[in-house]
């Protein structure tokens, strides 16, 4: 790309760093707000008890996946449009008014893009990982099969596709037999798309694609934002209170905010805060939420396709999953 087509502007850098630092901070505060159920006093209670470091760590652990989806979508569309601008005639409207996504793409440092792809590889669900291949080809406009010598490039591509087919074959068969066609599609198609997704697109298509892609990126970012602010920052626990009648025990599902010498403060799942005297606190267990239930049974070489690589590695380190009986009984008793 020529400097004339899409000049790098220094104010892009300033905006970029403002975004990188400011957005997580703002998002963290908004999450506390949503977590409190919109109650001002509870928000203040959370702010006073959740340390900024924990907040940022929780944000990183839960939002990385969503953030990288937005970034990868932006880079892919930006890369495609950048190639279109580069290929357009000098008097073309694409050159005179380059699309926003192409300008943002140019302003983004390469190391940042590489970091985003790396984080995506680690945190995306395995079923979505194949999408990173066409996304990378689109962003960096790289077509291995077009490299000279063509016969070598074609051989390499065929071998890579063969290896990929071996890797995903059993999972695709399992998905097909289980009528999970979307999963099969997501595993099979992306590498094939990756072969042809790079390359300058015609001007008419670029002008149509640009606003659609921008709207799509904004849509993904908006959905990601709402997902991010709704994701809990404190772990879910179930506490059985002591001293209750045997035939009518009392359970509390919620998030522990703080513990001192006298009380355990818990933000209840259904809303509201309770200060529990420590003498009342009985068995306490960590529970999963229904959102964590898998939607498919497909496994890729033993790994569940809804796990990320990080999660899969984690499962190898701690393979045992324990569903505490208290989690089941407390759920049914409170709903």
């Amino acid at each position, binding site marked *: 790309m020529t400097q004339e087509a899409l000049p790098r502007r220094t104010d892009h850098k300033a905006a970029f760093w403002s975004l990188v630092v400011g957005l997580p901070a703002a998002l963290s505060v908004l999450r506390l707000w949503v977590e409190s159920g919109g109650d001002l006093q509870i928000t203040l209670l959370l702010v006073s008890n959740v340390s900024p470091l924990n907040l940022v760590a929780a944000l990183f652990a839960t939002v990385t996946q969503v953030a990288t989806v937005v970034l990868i979508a932006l880079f892919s569309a930006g890369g495609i449009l950048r190639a279109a601008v580069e290929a357009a005639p000098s008097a073309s409207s694409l050159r005179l008014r380059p699309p926003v996504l192409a300008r943002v793409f140019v302003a983004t440092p390469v190391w940042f893009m590489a970091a985003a792809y790396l984080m995506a590889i680690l945190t995306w669900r395995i*079923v979505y990982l194949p999408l990173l291949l066409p996304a990378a080809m689109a962003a960096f406009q790289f077509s291995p099969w077009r490299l000279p010598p063509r016969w070598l490039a074609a051989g390499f591509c065929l071998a890579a596709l063969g290896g990929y087919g071996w890797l995903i074959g059993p999972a695709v068969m399992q998905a097909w037999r289980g009528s999970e066609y*979307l999963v099969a599609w997501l595993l099979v198609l992306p590498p094939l798309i990756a072969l042809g*997704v790079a390359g300058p697109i015609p001007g008419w298509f670029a002008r149509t694609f640009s606003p659609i892609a921008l709207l799509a990126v904004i849509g993904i970012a908006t959905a990601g934002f709402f997902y991010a602010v709704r994701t809990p920052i404190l772990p879910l626990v179930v506490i059985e209170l002591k001293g209750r009648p045997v035939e009518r025990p009392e359970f509390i599902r919620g998030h522990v905010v703080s513990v001192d010498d006298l009380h355990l403060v818990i933000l209840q799942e259904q809303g509201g805060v309770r200060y529990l005297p420590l003498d009342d606190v009985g068995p306490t267990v960590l529970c999963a939420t229904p959102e*964590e*239930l898998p939607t498919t049974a497909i496994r890729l070489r033993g790994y569940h396709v809804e796990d990320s690589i990080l999660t899969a590695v984690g499962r190898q380190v701690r393979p045992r*999953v324990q569903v505490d*009986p*208290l*989690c089941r009984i407390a759920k*049914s008793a409170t709903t």
Partner: protein
Amino acid sequence: MSKLRDALTVLCIGAFLITGAAAACVENKDPKESVQSLRAKSPTLRDKVRLRIGVRETLPFLSYRDPSTGIRSGFEVELARGIASDLGFTEEKIDWVPVTDVQSRMHVLQANQADIVVASLTMAPDRPVDFAGPYLVMPQAILVHKQRTKRVESIADLKAPDFKTCVGISSTSAKALEAKGIKPELVNDGLMCIDGMTSNKYDAYSSDLQVLASVLARDPDKFEILKLLVSDAEERIGVAVPQGDTALRDLVAYFLNRWLIGPQPSPWMRAYDRTIGPHLEAKYRSQPRVDKPPVLVDYDSKAQPR
């Protein structure tokens, strides 16, 4: 050539967008039936914070309550504890309901005095309860006094007029013996057969092998089990649940099947080895295949299978 390449690129970008949209669809797909959602559908379990389990109390290693300590033990007790735990009830949230004869085992479910019964009930389709399982597949056998074994060399010897064979009324053993032309003495509870055997009132006691193994384990010097084929069919022993509560039936079947296909030793195997297993032949040391286990998801579904 250039136009073809452009068209190919446009086509691939379009396919990429559609595939991205498909990914969003996968992300927003509702989970399949889960343990938690099925649990909410069970009328027996709804709003329950304690589980009532019907068990027997007189069969050591199978289902026993120590009268002096009140401690319960045995294969069926441990199995019941495991199922209760999977359903969400820890030991202290179990109410044990003592059951005796076949009628009482089904009656406690019909009268809403128990939520499940784990008490060597054969999975017979004509019984007014539903079954999950089997958790044991056992033949019917005959327990006799050691000193009288010589009198019984075949099933036909049980027809002798002076030979008294005891069986529990409504049991499948009674039906099997009657089908072979043997007229056993029917009693309400198998416990009466055991007492009668101890007091020499009866010459033989016919029941499922695991029950007889329990009796034998208590008094191995006095009794022995004959290797005679009482019935061609083996008894499929299941967990009884109230009739019509298919959600509870499916949940129990799911947990039993998860033990079968999950990491070993499973709760079934551990319970078996600790209790009745050493008193039965090695060929019975494997959990039987479960009837129609449902496909459910649970919080541990993503963990590595065996």
